[in-house]
């Protein structure tokens, strides 16, 4: 069998010394190459922490993370990331914002000057794919939150990252914009086929987008359940209302409720 692209093995993470917050414990999961995995869990269970460990942004307390067969002991060199806040640079146009990773990641960094036109066209294509055609020369403040988030997604994808990390990227958007963006993300991922880890607390989002949904326990977080999402692609908004989709949602919902109850009793026993 082919080796998974991301392997997380018995990882623990404690913030701030021996007495600090234990955010993750015995957390293990794998993600295959080109797979789209969603991690869901109650707020504060360590989802963002998991993202930081996988990308090597923070050193973990215990365990191992292997990405593309390499042990992660420093920040990865070309992972695409997007967060709840679009974090675009206000002094750059949308196009220049999207092209920022090309100025950092090799080999694009070296080639950018000589092949400017090619990269420029690529960025415009990507922007058009998420419905931002005509906004290339605008500045972030001239765009709505949803549009900024689309640009932020393009920035995460411009350099063809093998690994795409999305930390609640649609968390701040209204439901209609969010659903539009699900469809656009699905299209982009089907075209570019990156390996994706999406963190979210929206179950519908997880089931709609992912090949596999992992449920995390409350703090200290670990994976307590896993469900394959067998529905064929491309999925449409109609699919959400089908009984099998609803049944899967229901099933996952149970696990989350269990996790939250367990977390609540744990905290109560600590308080006592």
């Amino acid at each position, binding site marked *: 069998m082919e080796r998974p692209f991301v392997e997380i093995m018995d990882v623990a993470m404690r913030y701030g010394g021996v007495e600090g917050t234990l955010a993750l414990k015995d957390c293990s999961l794998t993600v295959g190459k080109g797979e789209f995995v969603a991690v869901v869990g109650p707020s504060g269970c360590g989802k963002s922490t998991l993202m*930081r460990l996988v*990308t090597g942004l923070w050193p973990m307390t215990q365990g191992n993370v292997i990405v593309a067969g390499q042990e992660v002991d420093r920040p990865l060199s070309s992972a695409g*990331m*997007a967060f709840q*806040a679009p974090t675009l*640079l*206000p002094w750059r146009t949308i196009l220049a914002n999207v092209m920022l990773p090309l*100025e950092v990641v090799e080999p694009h960094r070296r080639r950018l000057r000589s092949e400017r036109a090619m990269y420029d066209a690529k960025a415009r294509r990507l922007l058009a794919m998420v419905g931002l055609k005509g906004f290339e020369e605008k500045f972030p403040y001239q765009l709505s939150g949803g549009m900024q988030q689309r640009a932020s997604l393009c920035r995460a994808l411009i350099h063809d990252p093998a690994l795409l*990390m999305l930390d609640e990227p649609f968390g701040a958007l209204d439901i209609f914009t969010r659903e539009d963006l699900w469809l656009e993300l699905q299209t982009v991922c089907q075209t570019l086929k990156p390996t994706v880890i999406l963190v979210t607390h929206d179950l519908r989002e997880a089931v709609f987008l992912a090949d596999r949904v992992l449920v995390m326990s409350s703090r200290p977080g670990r994976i307590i359940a896993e469900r394959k999402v067998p529905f064929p692609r491309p999925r449409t908004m109609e699919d959400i209302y089908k009984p099998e989709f609803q049944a899967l949602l229901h099933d996952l919902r149970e696990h989350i409720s269990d996790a939250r109850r367990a977390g609540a009793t744990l905290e109560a026993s600590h308080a006592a």
Partner: protein
Amino acid sequence: MPRDATPEPIPTNRGPTRAEAMALAARRRRRLQAWLPWIIILGTFLIWEAVVFAFQIPQFILPAPSDIAASMYKWWWPLLDNSWQTLMTTLIGFAFAIAFGLALGVAIGSSSLLYAGLYPLLIAFNSVPKVAVVPILVIWFGIGTVPAVITAFLISFFPIVVNVATGIATVEPELRDVLRALGAKPTDIIRKVGLPRAMPYFFASLKIAITVAFVGSIIAETVASNKGIGHLMILASSRFDVPLVFAGLIITGIMGVVMYAIAVKIEDRTTGWAMRGQEGQSVATSIGG
């Protein structure tokens, strides 16, 4: 009847519409804003003149604006010569403050270790009244231009350091993560994000720095120099030529305002992006002295 015909505007005879009236009011307001400083200055001088005349205040206590103008006319050459000296002193000290302030600000803003190590020292240094430092400078460099340049530098680099460091240190952690996960080196992050982000803070600090630089060089000139507008004022007051002292003060004020205006112009040109969508607000500045 065609569907897409634009509907006739409802005829009114109430004069201009509300939107037009508001635009007109806004324009009138802007015009008033532009003229207001001049009107107030003129008004102040007129009242001043009237008060001096009405109460027969002697010239060596409070000279009337007309006396000051006469003194400016009479002493125009020494005033010009010494203002030039002060201007040069200030600008040289200010230039050093920019170079040093930027470098130190970037260093402190990008390294928490340097920040922890140097910040208390900077605060301590900034709390020392610079007039107390001038005698030491005189011992080291003798009377003349050098102590004035150094004082202007010492007094004006602090706001620059603090502002640049703040701009760089407050880069959003998520943005930092995005770049680090792309394999960006710390120097990349400073170049692509830290520095551009710090620019509005930097230019905001220049407005403060240039005005306090004037204070610095004039302090040094009054204590230990044989040239400059500060020296001229000390000479004039020792001869009880109060109108000339006031002439010096007014010229200093004018130089300060002009340099401030230039700094604002440069700020608008270079960092307009920081002001868009929030007109009227400005970036926080800190005052050193």
